């Protein structure tokens, strides 16, 4: 249920700094990921457009402990805004809270499950459960709404991945009685694991017809295994992924659909909201952030009470549309 209006936090009452004196820092799960390289382009675009120093930081390996250390150091540096994409949501909360207490605006992304009071706002490209359901619709269509399917998550500890797969499964049970869930596997965010698991899954359940991936490596590994077994035509592979990684497999037909959102735009949107707050503006339902996908935002509450700003629209990358998404 969208809240009608959310008032800006009190801290913004502080005297407004000039744009050139502001520092916006983004903290991501791991800075080496293709995904976050794209994220960085968004905040760099924001830097150019608004003249506000924006940069991305994060551990070299995805790990909450290391991420928290980065946040702690940013607090000590006295930045104005921290945009955090937490690897583990609860583990990052105390550091976020500490930043809030220090008068810093703290935005979250992919942190829908955060507790109330640990983020100024969380910004999501979409509602995670709907995303999972949409993925299932796409998978079901490609499978002719029947047959066995398996799911991958990058890791069991990843809340988003598990929301996607669970909502997808629930949606299937409600709408596609002829489809049959076989098993969920954990790729450990490593496409080589996904590859080996897919091969073994084919042995364990020879008549698999569909695969749903969550980590961006899942459809790559599974797709490769399917392709090498010469089963590209009979098995549908659908999941989160981006064109630069999955391009070849989309072309060969081993992967049927990669779904994603543009992390660059999410980062940009977070920055814009933070800036508006600093300007004393209020964030309201239906507002246009002038960012693709965030033309008319929705405001809601996460399961643990944090206020979430939803954009609209995921993107769907197929062999036909892949050229439109150069990341």
């Amino acid at each position, binding site marked *: 249920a969208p809240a009608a209006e959310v008032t800006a936090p009190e801290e913004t009452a502080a005297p407004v700094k000039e744009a050139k004196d502001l*520092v916006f*820092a983004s903290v991501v799960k791991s*800075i*080496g990921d293709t995904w976050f390289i794209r994220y*960085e382009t968004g905040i760099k675009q924001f830097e150019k457009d608004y003249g506000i*120093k924006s*940069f*991305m*930081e*994060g*551990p*070299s*390996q*995805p*790990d*909450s*402990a*290391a991420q*928290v*250390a*980065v946040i*702690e*150091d*940013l*607090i*000590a*540096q*006295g930045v104005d805004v921290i945009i955090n994409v937490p690897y*583990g*949501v*609860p*583990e*990052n*909360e*105390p550091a976020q809270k500490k930043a809030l207490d*220090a008068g810093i605006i703290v935005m979250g992304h992919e942190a829908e499950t955060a*507790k109330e009071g640990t983020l100024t706002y969380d910004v999501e490209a979409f509602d995670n459960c709907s995303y999972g359901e949409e993925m299932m619709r796409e998978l079901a269509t490609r499978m002719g709404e029947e047959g066995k399917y398996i799911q991958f998550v990058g*890791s*069991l*500890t990843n*809340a988003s991945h*598990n929301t996607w797969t669970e909502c997808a499964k629930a949606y299937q049970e409600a709408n596609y009685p002829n489809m049959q869930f076989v098993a969920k596997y*954990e790729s450990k965010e490593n496409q080589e694991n996904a590859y080996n698991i897919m091969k073994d899954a084919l042995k364990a359940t020879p008549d698999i017809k569909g695969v749903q991936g969550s980590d961006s490596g899942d459809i790559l590994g599974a797709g490769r295994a399917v392709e090498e077994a010469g089963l590209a035509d009979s098995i549908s592979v659908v999941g989160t992924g981006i064109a630069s990684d999955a391009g070849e497999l989309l072309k060969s037909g081993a992967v049927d659909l990669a779904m994603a959102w543009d992390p660059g735009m999410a980062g940009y949107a977070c920055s814009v909201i933070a800036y508006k707050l600093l300007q004393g503006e209020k964030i309201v339902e239906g507002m246009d952030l002038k960012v693709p996908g965030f033309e008319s935002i929705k405001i809601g509450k996460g399961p*643990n009470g944090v206020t979430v700003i939803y954009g609209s629209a995921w993107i769907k990358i197929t062999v036909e549309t892949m050229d439109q998404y150069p990341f």
Partner: protein
Amino acid sequence: MNTTNLKPKVRFEMQTLLLAGILVFLLLFFGLNDQGFLAGRSISSMAIQLPEIGILSLAMMITVMIGGINLSINATANLAAVLSGLFILRFMPESQGPMVIVAMVGISLLIGVITGAINGFLVGYVGVPSILATLATMSIFTGIGVGLTKGQTVTGFPEVVGSVASLSPLGIPMPFLVFVGITVIAYILLGRTTFGFKTRMLGTNPVASKFSGINNKAVIMQIFIFSGVLSSIAGVLIMSRTMSASNAYGTATYVMLTILIGVLAGVVSGKGSVLNIFITVFILQVISTGSHMLLAGVRGSSFFKDFAWGVLLIIIFIINYFTHGRRKE
């Protein structure tokens, strides 16, 4: 190999002095380069993770001292947090009383003892090399937590759970006090008790220690239990600070970091200094925080930091080599 270790006492001080010198140098270096560095906020930023890393480093060090290694320290810490967290959520979700703390600490310590005993059994009694044994138990301990929670982070604890980390009697954060306390205890245990003495002997020559009547198996068992207990205390601190218990917390960084601290502190079979560990943990924390400050906003600064750490380590090894006198071959 013919290192003629003629003045053990002096040598020990050399290593400690060297480390202390590096620490002072780094503080000055970062302090002069960045005005904010010595400000209170960065100190408190450093103090946040330091106790956890420090205690885990001690847990690692004592196993290295008997010629082993314990790869399962982080898994033990997380399992202790997860199991005590599940217990609290199941049996005292609303309670704010001290019993919650008692349960948290009590269950965690129990987990530390049990996991340590499993490691000790495999290494001491079955005779599996510790690198293999603890690799397997790392998987087992994490696996239990993952299985019970389906991998999800355990949250929603009563507020009182956070008090361990947030209290700061006399203005000193509680976790830091715990770390200092444990350092002192470890110092006494290893330096002044028969347990520490036997540990050193076992690490030096396990056959001779057996023939001297030291019960090697029992000492190995005690060492791994001690290591497990220290790990579980780190687990309590993490749980209290993050108000959550995750199976994945620190898995990509903590184990290697503690090994690195041990190596820098000069821990080897039969020899290890609690004081050196204490200083080294500070060194690494200062480097980490300092480089974050100096490199703030530089693209890929974390990567550069990794690179610099590697180089710095080599440099420290080489300084060590020259200050300890060239070793004859």
